[in-house]
């Protein structure tokens, strides 16, 4: 056994150039697969991140049915209790309470139907990225500095364009009062203009401090939405159900992002499927390359095998030798592949691909896409290559075991 391993290992280095070439093809193949994996992970994380961290949060809690109608009266039950539970939850990093209402925004030149969000300025910035998305003005500071005579509102760049307003301009928000349904109107000044690259956010949403929203809508301390961010970014996709179960009670409904934006989840599933097929094809090409190389190198050495068989080596031992050779080749190639793969993933993790501004399933790539290291890239993929190579080598091994010795011995050149 050990002897054949030694022999196999020496064999693959007999023709260094060829072995290196084969190692290179398998290596590049492996590196490609690793890279594809890494970039897909990066893309997915970016997508999820752009959905969850731009405004959604990793999960949200509402009163059941709130999202169907955005009825102002449908506020979260047992709010304070829920908030303290969330704050004690180890998985939860930050929470942000919000008031959400349909309403209209009017400027001297136009008027638009929008969703008015009341947000807690300090807590919100830990959950979402509105503060970072602000391109002009400031994130809820103007209002305070001007003595709170009027309030600041953050609006999207597309909405600002449509309303023909710029920083500091007056706008009036109208919405209906909770319970009475009466018209509530307040004047605000544009404190900040943001660009989130999400059409809905940029063209039909406005943000005001939650206390003002609650005053305006007569909600007291009630809220419509609690957005949650988790310590572990993958918590929502992995243990989302757990979270949903834990906080869906008393008429409230907790949903992690895959439930909140199912189309995103579906898109990711589709991506997984496509990547899977791509991987299979790449694997197929690589494996074919391996078979090819194995066969070629074995054919060249048929005489040698003839000698081995003639002097009394059993067919099984020869088969073993060939499989070992393939395995050695796989190990050698994997090392090349791992080094190459690590290198390109490393490069990719520093120099990202720029797809920013591209909207995708309601989300937008906000940043460059970087490759992401995952352990499986360095374990699963090489292991698959190794297994495939060994499995594939069974065929030439069988062939060599069965060949006619006299025929083999005739081969000279």
């Amino acid at each position, binding site marked *: 056994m050990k002897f054949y391993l030694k022999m196999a290992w020496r064999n693959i280095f007999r023709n260094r150039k060829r072995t290196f070439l084969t190692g290179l093809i398998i290596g590049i193949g492996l590196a490609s697969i690793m890279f594809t994996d890494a970039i897909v992970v990066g893309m997915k994380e970016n997508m999820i991140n752009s959905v969850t961290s731009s405004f959604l949060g990793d999960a949200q809690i509402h009163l059941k049915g709130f999202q169907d109608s955005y009825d102002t009266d449908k506020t979260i039950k047992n709010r304070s209790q829920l908030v303290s539970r969330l704050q004690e939850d180890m998985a939860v990093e930050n929470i942000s309470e919000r008031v959400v209402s349909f309403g209209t925004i009017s400027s001297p030149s*136009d008027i638009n139907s929008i969703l008015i969000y009341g947000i807690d300025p300090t807590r919100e910035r830990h959950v979402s990225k509105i503060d970072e998305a602000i391109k002009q003005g400031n994130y809820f500071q103007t209002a305070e500095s001007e003595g709170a005579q009027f309030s600041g509102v953050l609006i999207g760049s597309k909405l600002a364009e449509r309303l023909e307003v710029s920083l500091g301009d*007056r706008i009036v928000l109208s919405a209906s009062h909770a319970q009475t349904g009466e018209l509530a*109107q307040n*004047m605000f000044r544009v404190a900040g203009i943001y660009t989130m690259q999400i059409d809905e956010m940029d063209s039909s949403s406005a943000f005001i401090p939650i206390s003002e929203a609650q005053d305006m809508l007569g909600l007291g301390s009630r809220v419509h939405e609690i957005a949650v961010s988790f310590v572990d970014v993958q918590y929502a996709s992995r243990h989302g159900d757990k979270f949903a179960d834990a906080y869906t009670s008393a008429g409230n409904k907790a949903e992690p992002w895959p439930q909140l934006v199912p189309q995103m989840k579906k898109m990711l599933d589709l991506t997984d499927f496509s990547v899977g097929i791509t991987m299979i094809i790449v694997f197929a090409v690589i494996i074919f390359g391996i078979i090819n190389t194995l066969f070629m190198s074995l054919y060249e050495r048929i005489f040698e095998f003839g000698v081995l068989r003639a002097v009394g080596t059993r067919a099984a031992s020869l088969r073993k030798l060939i499989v070992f050779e393939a395995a050695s080749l796989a190990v050698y190639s994997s090392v090349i592949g791992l080094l190459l793969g690590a290198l390109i993933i490393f490069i990719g993790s520093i120099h990202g691909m720029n797809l920013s501004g591209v909207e995708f399933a309601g989300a937008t790539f906000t940043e460059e896409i970087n490759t992401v290291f995952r352990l499986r890239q360095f374990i699963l993929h090489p292991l698959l290559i190794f297994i495939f190579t060994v499995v594939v080598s069974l065929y030439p091994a069988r062939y060599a075991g069965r060949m006619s010795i006299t025929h083999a011995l005739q081969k000279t050149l």
Partner: protein
Amino acid sequence: MKFQLNHYGLVLFILLVGVSPLLAQSGTTDQQPEIERVVNAIDRLYRHDSSHTLMEMEIHTPHWSRTLKLEAWSEGMDKTFIRILQPQKERGMGTLRIDNEMWNYLPKTNKVMKIPPSMMMSSWMGSDFKNNDLVKEFTFTENYTFEYMRPDEAKKGLLYLKCTPKPGEPIVWGHVVVAVDSETLIPKWEKYYDEHNDLMRIMYFKDVETFDGRQLPSVMELVPQTKEGHKTVLHYIEAEFDIQIDERIFSLRNLRTFRK
């Protein structure tokens, strides 16, 4: 597609609520009168306890022009009732406003439809007025600060006031310039500007006539400056003020009972 949304203000409210008598004392001539008195006069022009008016509303757009004949009742600041008398197609349609709530009556379907707050900014019956204009009330005295000004194109015999909304008022305008006849203190026009000094719309007051013993402009013309070809003109045909109005007028029941 969106509803054709228009500009809004206090004009329709003012008109529908009626025109109150001007306590015009012809006295000081050369001297500018005390500013509070002028503003008060403008505000008071539209103040009264109740009104009952008959008017025509001409609506012009690039696509069509039409005229509605309206009968309106108002009481105090919170109650308004409007009935469309003409044209035939819309005859019987009505709008009731009580406080901040508003309903439309549709005779063909015999249905009363409440206007949700999200539709408050929509046009009232296709005019340049908005539903909201019937609901919200503002006065220059209470909601604005004001000062005299002298524009470049100032004409003799007119007083000019620059009215700026008080901070925090839910008013979109940057300021409003009002031109008032220095004798009668009846407004000539009001120009609405945004904060960048762009003119957004003009309201003209024309053809002063006597209604119920009071002198009032009988024509008001609203011309949005941002939409070409749009104009809404209101003609007063008849008006009576400070009369006793049956409380039942301002009810949903009345809204939905109209005999053609």
